[in-house]
């Protein structure tokens, strides 16, 4: 242990000096690098990637958390590849597939010769074992069901390279579900471990272009390229092993240390550049990557079970009295497009509803008057002695959530509404978030490049951000989720967006991106459809 640590730090310091050296002339790469200039990819080198938070549990379906996804996206492959530009599902480990007409049977034909990094084959039985867990969970191993699989019944191994999945109801979202970060394939040995074990990175054996070399829990994860990797998605121009030799993922919680380390040449790539730091990064000649997350927008979600918000007029008043543009203009940058609907304009089934989202304080005041909330001496409205006060938690994962809520609180104060902003104390939040009286409003978003994302957010059996008691909404969401025809499904998603806004359940603010910063010599950075970095084709050019 200690000797390997010493070696790692030695490598680290060498890499460090190489990076610092890059400011003058390129170091580290040697002959291979000095022979090329700019355009042609080169092999070798280490990418130092600074993460904002340490990874938590690495059980694949929990990969949605960005620090987890940033690692798992390098060490696992998926059955299919969602093209981030077209959002089409393309072959990867599955070379082709058939779906029956009502989307209750999916047959995948697998690529031959793919192996996990422990040498075991990635075959039909391994894939079946993975999806049996993702679709059904495992009570004994304490493994929860994955969000991206709906209506799963069972798997069937047809032959070593053919696997079929059966669903008890149509599951049109499943094909896209096989491409998401949480659907990464792991070896049969990994998938049969209990939850606690699957949480630990050292137990995750995937077939991806990188494998784990060394981990210092909560501090650093070192990945090393797999030399025999030869099964990138066919649509990738780059095939064979990854260009980089190594990726060092270092947890650096302090915002300005991450940005300073990047611009001073100590790191190559960083996640979570705050809006107010974007200019610093750009001015230093570095690049900002603001990647869309293509799902339900960052916004405020109003809970109809709250005794004040149960009145539609109040919900509509808050919607009309919120100036999202001011929020974006004051706190954020061009990387954060103002919301034009419940969904991001890059989401599947998006419909432009910006007309319904116009800022109209006069209308808001009128609606509140009509609803019987009269202004008191201090300007705050009240009805029957109850002040118009609503509680919301600061949302940890959302950028500048506190500032956003404070600004909205100021806008609402003009209407005579008091927004009570509570700090994100995890324990209190975990208890009160399910209480519509205490937490009248939730601040959040969810990213996933499939129509089902709206169901994940609003359905009473999924994330249920509004603590829905609306059976019509649940029914609409279920219909969307079970509609095999794409055009009809998109129409349903559009209907849901209109319905959610009409009912005043949502106040969309902006399309939340994941913002990364990269050194100018880092080439070939790619992201999956929901903005997790994919370092397979990354290489470092000369400066």
């Amino acid at each position: 242990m200690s000797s390997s640590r010493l070696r790692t730090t030695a490598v680290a310091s060498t890499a460090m000096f190489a990076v610092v050296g890059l400011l003058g002339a390129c170091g580290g790469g040697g002959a291979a690098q000095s022979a090329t200039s700019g355009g042609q990819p080169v092999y070798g080198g280490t990418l130092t990637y600074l993460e904002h938070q340490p990874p938590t549990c690495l059980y694949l379906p929990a990969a949605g958390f960005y620090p987890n996804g940033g690692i798992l996206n390098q060490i696992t492959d998926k059955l299919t590849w969602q093209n981030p530009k077209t959002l089409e599902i393309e072959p990867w480990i599955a070379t082709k597939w058939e779906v029956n007409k009502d989307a209750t049977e999916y047959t995948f034909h697998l690529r031959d010769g793919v192996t996990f990094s422990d040498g075991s084959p990635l075959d039909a039985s391994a894939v079946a074992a993975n999806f049996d867990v993702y679709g059904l969970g495992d009570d004994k191993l304490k493994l929860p069901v994955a969000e991206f699989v709906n209506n799963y019944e069972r798997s069937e191994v047809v032959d070593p390279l053919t696997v079929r999945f059966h669903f008890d109801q149509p599951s049109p979202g499943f094909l896209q579900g096989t491409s998401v970060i949480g659907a990464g394939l792991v070896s049969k040995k990994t998938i049969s471990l209990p939850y606690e074990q699957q949480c630990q990175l050292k137990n995750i054996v995937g077939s991806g272009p990188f494998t784990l070399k060394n981990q210092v829990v909560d501090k650093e994860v070192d990945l090393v390229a797999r030399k025999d990797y030869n099964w990138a998605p066919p649509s990738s121009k780059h095939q064979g092993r990854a260009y980089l030799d190594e990726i060092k993922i270092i947890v650096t919680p302090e915002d300005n240390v991450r940005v300073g380390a990047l611009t001073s040449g100590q790191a190559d790539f960083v996640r979570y550049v705050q809006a107010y730091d974007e200019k610093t990064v750009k001015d230093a000649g570095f690049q900002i990557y603001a990647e869309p997350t293509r799902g339900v927008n960052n916004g405020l979600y109003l809970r109809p079970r709250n005794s004040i918000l149960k009145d539609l007029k109040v919900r509509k008043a808050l919607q009309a009295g919120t100036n999202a543009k001011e929020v974006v203009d004051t706190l954020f940058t061009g990387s954060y497009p103002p919301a034009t609907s419940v969904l991001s304009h890059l989401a599947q089934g998006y419909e432009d509803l910006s007309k319904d989202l116009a800022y109209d304080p006069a209308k808001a005041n009128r609606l509140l008057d009509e609803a019987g909330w009269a202004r008191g001496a201090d300007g705050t409205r009240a009805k029957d002695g109850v002040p118009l006060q609503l509680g919301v938690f600061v949302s940890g994962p959302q950028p500048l959530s506190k500032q956003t809520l404070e600004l909205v609180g100021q806008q609402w104060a003009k209407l005579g509404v008091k927004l009570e902003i509570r700090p994100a104390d995890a324990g209190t939040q975990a208890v009160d978030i399910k209480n519509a009286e205490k937490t009248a409003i939730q601040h959040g978003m969810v990213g996933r490049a499939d129509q089902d994302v709206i169901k994940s957010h609003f359905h009473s059996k999924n994330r249920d951000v509004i603590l829905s008691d609306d059976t019509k909404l649940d029914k609409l969401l279920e219909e969307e989720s079970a509609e095999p025809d794409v055009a009809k499904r998109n129409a349903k998603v559009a209907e849901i967006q209109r319905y959610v806004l009409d009912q005043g359940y949502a106040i969309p603010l902006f399309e939340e991106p994941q913002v990364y910063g990269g050194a100018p010599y880092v080439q070939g950075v790619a992201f999956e459809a929901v903005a997790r970095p994919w370092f397979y084709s990354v290489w470092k050019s000369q400066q």
Partner: protein
Amino acid sequence: MTRYLLGRVGQAALVLWIAFTASYVLLRLLPGDSILIKFQNPELGLSPQQIAEIRTYYGAGDPPLLDYLNTLLGFLRGSFGYSIDTGTPVVERLGEALPETAKLASAAFVLAVLIAVLIAFAAGYSRTSWIRNALLSVPSVFVSVPAFWLGILLIQVFSFRLKLVPVIGGGPVQQLVLPVLTLAVPISAPIAQVLARSMDQVSTQAFVPVVAAKGASRWWILWRHVARNAVLPTLTVAGLTLGELIAGSVVTETVFGRGGIGRLTEQAVNAQDTPVMLAIVVLAAAVFVLVNLVVDVLFPVLDPRLKAAS
């Protein structure tokens, strides 16, 4: 001496048990728990029903007393359980974090003592009153510098501007330079203050002019006579700075992105990871007890008069 030590060990066990029980009760009283916090994370997209099932798996519904006894029994056997946040054994997490913090804290402590001695001696030696006053006000400045701010400032200046030491990567020594400085500055303040003040007091005692009259140099008096007599209260304060070392390491390790007990504490608090927090509390209490014991045992060694008295 044996009886004394046995008594102290008994006291130590009692302190540890009280620390354990108090933190168990406090953690229990907090709203929510780590299982809820972890699985209610919207990223997981679990339904309330699934969360309820997971809670039963983990035995979250056990009666408090039973759970307390189980946990206590585990601690007595040396098994601290699993971190709910990461699913790893708590012992493993402590084992990884402890050496890092030990390195940081011990280096910072040594540096803090050096700074303190330097300030106290310079002030004691100086005859010019404004220099003396200036030197004596340094600890007040040091103690009011927030570690957070100092850390960021040091990083910005020495790492990002002057590029003298890297914050990311770097050798084991390079990695320590700035964090140690960050942690040492506020710790050095109380030590310097107490040392300077007690040197001042000792200087006014009658034996000092006598030694001077015998022809001893200023330096000799300061080093051989004043400092030796002033060291006892300083030792007590130095023992007490341990708490600040632990508290300071939370900030320092977070700012510098170092692994360690401080960072582990911060994460465990955020996730309300009870098994980890309990283990940290007991560990910190154990270290406190141990350091105090060492200080008490050192007293008679440094001052023969105390040996005679006991």
